[in-house]
């Protein structure tokens, strides 16, 4: 067969392949279910509503970190008490800290970088809270926690590192990782599902509400979260199945390859505490518990030995620096049972109340 036939074949394969990649990238960019590529508008709108004191309903697939950024940037006064944590700290509400203003800045999958970056947002804006509640998840000290969403606040994180004399961040790496989602099949599947949902329902938009509980998730004006009714009111069997499934996942969320408490993260953590306390800001530690089934696995499986070590470490630091500690990864310490959890890792508001001694 003539060479030109083969050359045409190769060209056609490459052209088709490139077209598939371009179409996928276009779909991913245009639909952008997690708003990775979108400009400020979407998140700006959420932040504006929260600043006005509105609750925001039907929030999904939005960039949580950008919301924190726009919120702080548009404050006209400092907040008295702020919470920095992951989704496991999102049930901490303002009534637990009734003195002065309050905002819960917890973001899903928060890593230590997020804590540094969000606190830095206040400093960059010329504000300083009086109290910082730090939600300390065990993966904060795991160098293999595979959390990368903090990179949306890369500038603020880098700025915080400057203060702490750590300079190891690469802007290029951040943009490479972000734009890699353009050619990600899982993001494409998500884009297609979201696109179809929008086509059918035509209603993916959040809205302000005075409701505090609903069939859709609601972010309250104090930054805490109220899950949708279906998730909030799951029966005991479903919660247990969910916890079991979580406990059997390999690895358990962000705890893979956790062979030691990373030295760099320990330095960063202690540096953050010193910095915050050095500014006469009160620090409170919050150790969110795990579902009893999950904690049983964490406590007995040698692969997760660092979870208990992390708790020990946080308590040592707390003692050394005179910081009050609430909670424990072990749910039994604060009298939490299976009924106090939405799933394997998210404690309910009633668990938070038990921990802060308000039941």
């Amino acid at each position, binding site marked *: *067969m003539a*060479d030109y*036939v*083969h*050359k*045409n*074949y*190769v060209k*056609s*394969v*490459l*052209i*088709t*392949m*490139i*077209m*598939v*990649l371009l179409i*996928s990238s276009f779909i991913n960019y245009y639909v952008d279910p997690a708003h990775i590529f979108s400009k400020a508008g979407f998140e700006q709108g959420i932040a504006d509503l929260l600043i006005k004191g509105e609750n925001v309903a039907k929030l999904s697939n939005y960039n949580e970190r950008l919301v924190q950024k726009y919120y702080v940037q548009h404050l006209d006064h400092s907040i008295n008490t702020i919470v920095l944590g992951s989704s496991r700290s999102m049930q901490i509400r303002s009534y637990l800290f009734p003195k002065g203003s309050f905002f819960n800045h917890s973001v899903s999958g928060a890593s230590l970088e997020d804590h540094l970056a969000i606190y830095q947002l206040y400093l960059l804006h010329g504000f300083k809270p009086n109290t910082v509640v730090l939600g300390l998840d065990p993966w904060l000290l795991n160098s293999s926690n595979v959390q990368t969403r903090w990179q949306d606040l890369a500038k603020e994180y880098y700025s915080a590192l400057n203060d702490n004399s750590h300079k190891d961040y690469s802007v290029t790496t951040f943009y490479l990782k972000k734009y*890699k*989602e353009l*050619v*990600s*099949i*899982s*993001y*494409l599947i998500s884009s297609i599902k979201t696109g179809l949902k929008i086509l059918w329902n035509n209603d993916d938009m959040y809205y302000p509400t005075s409701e505090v509980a609903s069939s859709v998730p609601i972010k309250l004006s104090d930054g805490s979260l109220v899950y949708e009714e279906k998730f909030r009111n799951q029966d005991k069997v479903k919660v247990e*199945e969910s916890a*079991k*499934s*979580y*406990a*059997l*996942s*390999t690895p358990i969320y962000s705890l893979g390859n956790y062979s030691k408490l990373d030295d760099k993260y320990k330095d960063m953590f202690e540096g953050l505490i010193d910095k915050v306390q050095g500014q006469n800001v009160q620090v409170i530690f919050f150790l969110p518990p795990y579902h009893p089934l999950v904690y049983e*696995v964490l406590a007995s*499986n040698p692969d997760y030995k660092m979870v208990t070590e992390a708790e020990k470490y946080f308590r040592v630091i707390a003692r050394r620096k005179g910081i009050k500690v609430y909670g424990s990864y072990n749910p039994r310490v604060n009298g939490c049972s299976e009924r106090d959890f939405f799933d394997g890792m998210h404690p309910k508001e009633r668990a938070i109340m038990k921990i802060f001694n308000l039941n």
Partner: protein
Amino acid sequence: MLFNSYEFIFIFLPITLILYFTLGYFKYTKMALGILVFASLAFYAYWDIRYLPLLIGSILFNYFVGALIGKTKSKKLLIINIFINFALLGYFKYAGFFVKSIDDFFGASFIAPEIILPLGISFFTFTQTAFLVDAYRGEFEKYDLLKYSLFVTVFPHLIAGPILHHGEMMPQFNNPKIFCLNWSNICIGITIFFVGLFKKVIIADRLALIANPIFNSAFSGSSLDMIEAWLGALAYSLQLYFDFSGYSEMAIGLALLFNLKIPINFFSPYKAKNIIDFWRRWHITLSEYLKNYLYIPLGGNRKGQVRRYINLLATMLLGGLWHGAGWNFIIWGALHGVYLTLNHLWRHLTKKVGLKVFRNEKTGRFLAWLTTFIAVVMAWVFFRANDVNTALSILRGMFGANGISLNPQFASNLSIKEVVIWIAISLIITLKSPNIIEITGDLHGKELSWKPSYAWAIILGIIAGIAILGISQHSEFLYFQF
């Protein structure tokens, strides 16, 4: 470096191709081969440069020793050097297992050393020991160091096979045509490569989401019901096939880009109607190696039926041990040894008495296939399980010891519907469709036979595009651990 990575597909491969063919075009053939060797070593070093001296040392040692053995025909030298090669493999691969087994059996408390297994050591050890044996048998010509190095390291096969034989590779290196760009080979090469990539990143990795949580659940002490246990076993059997055959096909496709033909390693193994046939279709180069360098030297079938079965068992036991340092791998090997023995015994007996078990050939073929498939799937349970207890637990589940649940929970949060769909699609592809080697091979007149047409180009382009999208989810090949 992995084949399923951006840096390999878009940087390493194009640069190596351009350099190779440019040098070949200007008749710098030795340099072209040198570039391939350099690229292969760089490919290996990308994983961990600390182990590069080990690979280079192994090549130099075996090359010079091989030449000496070829000259002196010294059996003593051969045995010593095979021992050295396997001692090295034994140290890296089995030291920990050996110590742990002593601890378990004798209640001792020796500390098992934590040794990182150098990538591909099992493969390059086998490749080179075969060379030493053939040097002793006088079955090789004198090769120069460059070609020998290329034979051991050529990157498509370096990490996870196929196991190459010098007899099939060296003549190719001596053929001046390999340095000329061959568009036909490029077409077939990219076709096989992208199909292999798709099998790995789209199908195998999806099946892993089903198999892993089920096996992990059993490992953590959960009792699996029948449906869950079978779904896990099937998912893993299919995952392993798509992963390993996908890798092998990528290797074949890559080699073809450079005008090199490396042997087929998989040929629709799950279509086999008996275990003997299965081992002619699964990891073919390993089977050939074990046959030529273990089974036949042990006596093969030349010393009577009983000795034949003993040789089969011994070969498969050692084959199992080669796969991994664990009793579960040894049991897996032993099972296949028993299967092969029974198969040969069955053939021997039915031939002797002229027995025809099934009047209806179609029924007979179906039952033969089903028996073989189930036997293989059950053996894979040992292969995948973390330990023997976990494997036995899963098998108990498969036999219904823990009942049947119509709504199993999967830790990966896949629904039962998704799980069944993925397994069904994978089974249909595995059992009903021709494999890529058949499709791109010489199938004149058959509908699915490949040709470099626009229709095939579009199909392959879509497959390639989807496969590249799947690369973003990083995953290693299952056989990397070997």
